[in-house]
C-alpha cells in the first residue's frame, strides 16, 4: 500500500521530503547526464555503434582498463587490509600521521599523483632506473605503470571501508577461538576474515570502480601507446578532441554498461552472503 510507506517513523523530516530529494539529486546528477549520453549514442546506427565499440583499439583499451583496475583492486584488497589492520590493532609512534596519509590520494589532484609517479618510475627516474637495472622491469609506459597508478588511487577505498569493520570486530571472538585451541592463522581465516569480508568486498568494489574510470593519474605514466597502454577514458578524450562526439558517447555507454553490470552483480552477491551469514534475526 503506497500510502503506508509515507508514514514510517523516522528522525528526519518526512519520508516524502527525503525521497523527493533523493530522486531529485539522483536525476539531476546521475540519471540526466547518463540519459543524455545514451541519447547521444542513438545518433549512431547499430552497425556504426558496433564498429566503434568493437574496434580493435577500443577492445584493447577495455582489456587494459578493466584488467588493470581488477589487478590493482586485488592488490589493494590484500595490502589495504594489512594497512587497516596495523592502524587498528597496533599502537605505534606516528600512527595518526600514517592514518592521515592514507587519505592523500583522495585529496591530491590525480594529475599530480600521475606526474609524481611518472617522475619516480620513468626509465630515468629514481626508482625506474633501479628496477630496470636490478630486475629488468620497466614500469612507466607499460601496463605495469597503469596498475601502479590505479593501486595508489584505490588504496584509501579499501583501508577506509575495512577500518571500521575491524574496529567493530569483537576482540573476544578472537580470544574465544584462541582459548578453544585455534592457532593464529586458523583464527584469521575462520574468525577475522568472515567478520570483515563484506567490508573488504565493498572496499574492493569501490577501488575497482574508481580504477576503471581513472584518467588523470594514468595518462602520465602509461605512455598512451595505442593497443598497448591506452585506457578507455583516454580513448574517449581522443575521440572528443577529434570532434567524434558520437563515437565518444558510444565508448562511454559501453563502459557504463559493463561497470553497472559488474557493480550490480557484486552488490547482489554481497546481499546474498549477508543474509546467509547473519541470519534472519538481524
Amino acid at each position, binding site marked *: 500500500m503506497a500510502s503506508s510507506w509515507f508514514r514510517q517513523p523516522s528522525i528526519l523530516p518526512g519520508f516524502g521530503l527525503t525521497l523527493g530529494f533523493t530522486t531529485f539529486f539522483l536525476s539531476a546528477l546521475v540519471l540526466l547526464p547518463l540519459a543524455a549520453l545514451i541519447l547521444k549514442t542513438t545518433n549512431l546506427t547499430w552497425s556504426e555503434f558496433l564498429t566503434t565499440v568493437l574496434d580493435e583499439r577500443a577492445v584493447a583499451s577495455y582489456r587494459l582498463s578493466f584488467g588493470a583496475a581488477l589487478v590493482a583492486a586485488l592488490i589493494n584488497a590484500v595490502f589495504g587490509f594489512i594497512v587497516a589492520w596495523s592502524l587498528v590493532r597496533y599502537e605505534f609512534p606516528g600512527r595518526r600521521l600514517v592514518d592521515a596519509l592514507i587519505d592523500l590520494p583522495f585529496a591530491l589532484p590525480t594529475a599530480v599523483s600521475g606526474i609524481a609517479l611518472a617522475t619516480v618510475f620513468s626509465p630515468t627516474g629514481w626508482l625506474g632506473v633501479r628496477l630496470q637495472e636490478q630486475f629488468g622491469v620497466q614500469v612507466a609506459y607499460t601496463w605495469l605503470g597503469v596498475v601502479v597508478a590505479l593501486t595508489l588511487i584505490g588504496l584509501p577505498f579499501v583501508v577506509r571501508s575495512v577500518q571500521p569493520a575491524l574496529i567493530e570486530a569483537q576482540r573476544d571472538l578472537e*580470544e*574465544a577461538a*584462541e582459548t*578453544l585451541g585455534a592457532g593464529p592463522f586458523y583464527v584469521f581465516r575462520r574468525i577475522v576474515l568472515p567478520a570483515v569480508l563484506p567490508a573488504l568486498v565493498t572496499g574492493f568494489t569501490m577501488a575497482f570502480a574508481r580504477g576503471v574510470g581513472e584518467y588523470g593519474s594514468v595518462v602520465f605514466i602509461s605512455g598512451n601507446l595505442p593497443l598497448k597502454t591506452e585506457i578507455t577514458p583516454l580513448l574517449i578524450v581522443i575521440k572528443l578532441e577529434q570532434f567524434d562526439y558520437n563515437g565518444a558517447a558510444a565508448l562511454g555507454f559501453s563502459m557504463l554498461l559493463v561497470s553497472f553490470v559488474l557493480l550490480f552483480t557484486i552488490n547482489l552477491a554481497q546481499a546474498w552472503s549477508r543474509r546467509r*551469514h*547473519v*541470519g534472519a*534475526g*538481524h
Partner: protein
Amino acid sequence: MSIALDQVTKRYQGVPVVNDVSLNVRQGEFLVLLGPSGSGKSTLLRAIAGLTEIDHGRVSLHGKDVTHLTARQRQVGFVFQHYALFRHMSIGDNIEFALRVRKVRASERVARRKELLKLVALEGMDDRLPAQLSGGQQQRVAVARALAHRPEVLLMDEPFGALDAKIREELRRTIRQIQRELKITTILVTHDQEEAFALADRIGVMHQGRLLECGRPDDLYTRPATRFVSTFLGAANLLLGYRTSRGVRFDARSAESPREIVAVLRPEEVELATDAAHVRSNFVGHGVVEELLFGGAVERLRVRMSSDGPVPVAPGNDGNGGLGSLLEVSRTLPEQRQFPVTPGLRVAVGARRIHILPTPISSFTVVAGSEDATRELTDSPLLATLCTRMQTRVGSQVGNGHRAPPGMPVLATGAGSADAARWQLQNGATQLLCVPPSAPLPKHVIIHTLDPSARRATLAVAASLLRHVAAEAVYLVIHPAESLEAERAARMRDLLDARSSALNDHGLDMRTEMRPGDVAQELQAELARYDDSMLVLGTSDPASIRWDWLANVLEGTPPRPVLIVNSARLEAPVEA
C-alpha cells in the same frame, strides 16, 4: 591444586590492576571472584586463561607452571560476558569449533555435540544461527562450546551480566548443576553478591587489585576480617566500640577506654524494643525510627541513634554532621508483628550478635594546633586515601587533651612534631601516624621493630596499612656491626619468622633484609633511597625510641610519614 596463583601482579601504565594475588583452587572447587567493577577480578581471570600477560608472579594449572604459555596452550574453557559466539557459524559448528581445531573425527564430533547440547538443554538447535537464539540460550551455547574439548578448568567472566534477572537465576542453576556433574574446577567472576552466595564453594573478594579475603560464603559473611568485605557482602552497620571490663560498649562515655574496636552489626541482628528493659540482647542505645520500607518478607528501617549512642565508623553516611548515627535494621514478619513501629517512634536498640573486626586500626583522630591545620591534615593524600579505602572515621581535635584520643592520633610532621608524638605515646596512644600534609602516597614502606616482642603487633598494623595502600614493603633487621654469631643467628630467625607470619597471618608479601650497622643510620639511608618512602616503627617500650634521630626524620626535609606502633599497650590485657 588445580589452579595456583603465586604473587600475580599486572600493571597498566605502572598502575597495578592486579596487585600481588596468591590463591589456590582445589580440584572440583567452585570459586567465585567477587568485587566491584575495576577491582581487577576480570583481569585476574584473563591472566589465568593466558589472555593477559602478567608482570610478576606465577600461574600454575594442575601443578604445571603455565605462566609463559599462550591461551591456546593452556587449554582452559573460557566463557565471555557477551557470549562471543561465532555469528557466521551454526550452533553446532560453534560447539564443534574446539574439536575441529584438534582434527577430531566427524563421528566423534557429532556425538560430543549432541552430548553437550543435551547438557545445556538445547537439543535440536544444531542448525540455528546464534542470532536466532535468546541471550540466555546463547550463553548456554557458549558454555557448551567452552566444555567441548573437556578442559580441566572452566573460567567464566560475568557470564550472566547481560541477562535479565529471571533468566539469570535459571542459568545459574544450570551452571551449578553442570559444574557438580562434571566436577570441573571453576572460577566465576561477578560483582553480584547474591550470585556469589548461590554458586560458590568459596568466595574471593577483590578490591582495588587485591584479593582482600577468601573463604566459605558463611565464614565471610559472619566473620569478615576487613571493613570492605563486611559492607560489600551484605549490608552492615560498622560501629566504633570500646572494649571494657564489662564487654564491648558503644556509648561515648566508654570512650575513656583506649581499647577501641570496630564492630560489625548486621541489620538482621538488630533488636528493637519499647525500652531498654525490654531489650533481650545487648543494649546498644536509644534511637528514633526515621525511615521505614516494607519489602515483602522483611521490613527495612533506619533508626537514628541518639548522639550519646554508638559512633559510626565511616563518616558521612548519616548526612547530619555526625549527630548520632543511622542504623540499618531489617526485621522479619514475626518481629514486625511482635513490635510494630512507625516513623518517629522512639525505640531501644539491642544487638543480638556483633562481630569484632580483627583490624588493628579502628579510627583516626587528627590532632593539630588549629582547625585549618586539622583540615589540611585530613585532606593529605595518605590520610584521605586510608580513610576512604578503609572506610574509617577521621575525627579531629585542636590541641592536646588530657590524654591521647581513642583510635590512632594523626600529627603533622614538621617542627615540634617529635615532641608531640612523644607526648601522645606517653599519654596512652597505642599507635601514632605522622604525615607530611602534602606528601604523596608512599610507594615504599620500611618496617622495623626496635625489639622482637613488638613484631606481631607491628606487622598487623603494617599489613592493615599496606592492604589499602599499594606500596612495596621491606622488613629491615639491623644488627650492630660487631655483633656475635649467636646474636646474628637470632636476628636471622626473627627475620624469617617475620616473613612467614606476615604472609600467613596477614597475606602480606614483603621483602626482608638484614644489615649490619647502626639502626638510625641504616633506617635513614633506606628512607633516603626512595622519594616516596614511609617508616613503620614498632616498639614495646616508647622510651627506647631515640627521639633525636626520629626528630630528624619527622622534621627534616623532605619529611617522611612515620607510623609508630606501641605494642606494649596494644597487646596489654584489658584492665579489670
